[in-house]
């Protein structure tokens, strides 16, 4: 036996004592697993504190789809709430659009997350709220603009669910890449009011709620506004978080898909593009 330490391959830029496993898209810094977890979680904590997203005692609904972003958001918010004693009362809120072969499977993931993270869950369905599931709607109108309708319904369903849960705040897993896509889409569509609003980390806005229900007290925010998709996926992978990853069966022609591929291609050219946007 020899006790001589072997030189570490690609040592972590922070601790210098473990092998780096990730090159950060934001900074190019190379980090080991533990330093990555610490930096990732602390940046989200700083975003929450610097932007004063929550007040002690707030009841907060996490919009949960079972996908990578909302799964990581639920995990990290639970962890930070315990670590820094935010005093938040967390609940999971899922929308069942009624899409067979997609949402039914992803909701099973959310139910497992509920048990794994010990956060209560409410599922609100289009069928119950509106009398129509997405499957019913597509059967009736065919495959066109489905995502546009579905997005409007989902936003309102989240508000209705939030009222049922009596929460102060809804958080969603939108990340820096999503927001950049939305900015691009709003530029392409020339939608100036949305262009301004979509980059806010926190909004309080009822103009789109046609239901006339009073939701003005409920805040919405995006704690992952400055978090890159690559890091969310790497965090979920290394932490072995249980998330659902299948594309919605109605989405292949969605406008967002084109904006997304365009930005991913740009990314290869300009590493810092998300910050420029």
């Amino acid at each position, binding site marked *: 036996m020899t006790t001589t330490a072997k030189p570490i391959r*690609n040592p972590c830029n922070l601790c210098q004592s473990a092998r780096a*496993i*990730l090159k950060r898209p934001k900074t190019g810094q190379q980090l080991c697993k533990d330093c990555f977890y610490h930096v990732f979680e602390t940046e989200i904590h700083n975003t929450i504190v610097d932007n004063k997203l929550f007040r002690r005692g707030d009841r907060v609904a996490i919009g949960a*789809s079972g996908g*990578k972003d909302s799964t990581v958001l639920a995990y990290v918010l639970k962890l930070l709430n315990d670590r820094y004693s935010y005093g938040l009362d967390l609940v999971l809120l899922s929308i069942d659009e009624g899409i067979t072969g997609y949402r039914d499977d992803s909701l099973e993931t959310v139910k497992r997350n509920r048990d794994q993270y010990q956060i209560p869950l409410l599922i609100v369905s289009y069928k119950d709220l509106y009398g129509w599931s997405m499957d019913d709607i597509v059967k009736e109108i065919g495959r066109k603009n489905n995502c546009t309708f579905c997005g409007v319904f989902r936003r309102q369903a989240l508000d209705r669910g939030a009222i049922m849960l009596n929460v102060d705040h809804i958080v969603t897993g939108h990340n820096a890449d999503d927001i950049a896509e939305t900015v691009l889409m709003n530029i392409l569509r020339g939608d100036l009011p949305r262009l301004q609003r979509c980059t806010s980390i926190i909004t309080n806005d009822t103009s789109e709620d046609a239901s006339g229900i009073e939701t003005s007290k409920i805040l919405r925010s995006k704690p992952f506004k400055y978090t890159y998709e690559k890091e969310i996926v790497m965090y979920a992978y290394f932490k072995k978080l249980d998330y659902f*990853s299948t594309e919605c069966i109605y989405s292949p022609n969605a406008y967002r898909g084109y904006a997304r591929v365009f930005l991913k*291609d740009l*990314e290869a050219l300009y590493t810092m593009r998300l910050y420029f946007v």
Partner: protein
Amino acid sequence: MTMSESLAIELQFSGGMELLFDNKKTIHTKVPAHFRQGADSHAVTIRDLIGWMASHLLKERPELFIGPDGSVRSGILVLVNGADWELEGELEYELQDGDEIVFISTLHGG
């Protein structure tokens, strides 16, 4: 010719990537240790592996995996033996016998 020489490689797929590969999470395979380029031959790199996978393992829609530049499509993360391939030379990394290569799609769902 050294075509009989091959490397044992473990391929893993997640984040929806497995949907392109028969829904398999793991594939143990043998990859030629050398690839020819004109008159020369060189040790197999990840670039060669990606092209080889596209022609040998992919059943359909290779454009969802491989880009026009011969790399993986943007939005797919690659890990070499547990580390981000950006730390390992990316496309130019030379495969070693027993390597574990992970492909993770970031494009699916939210």
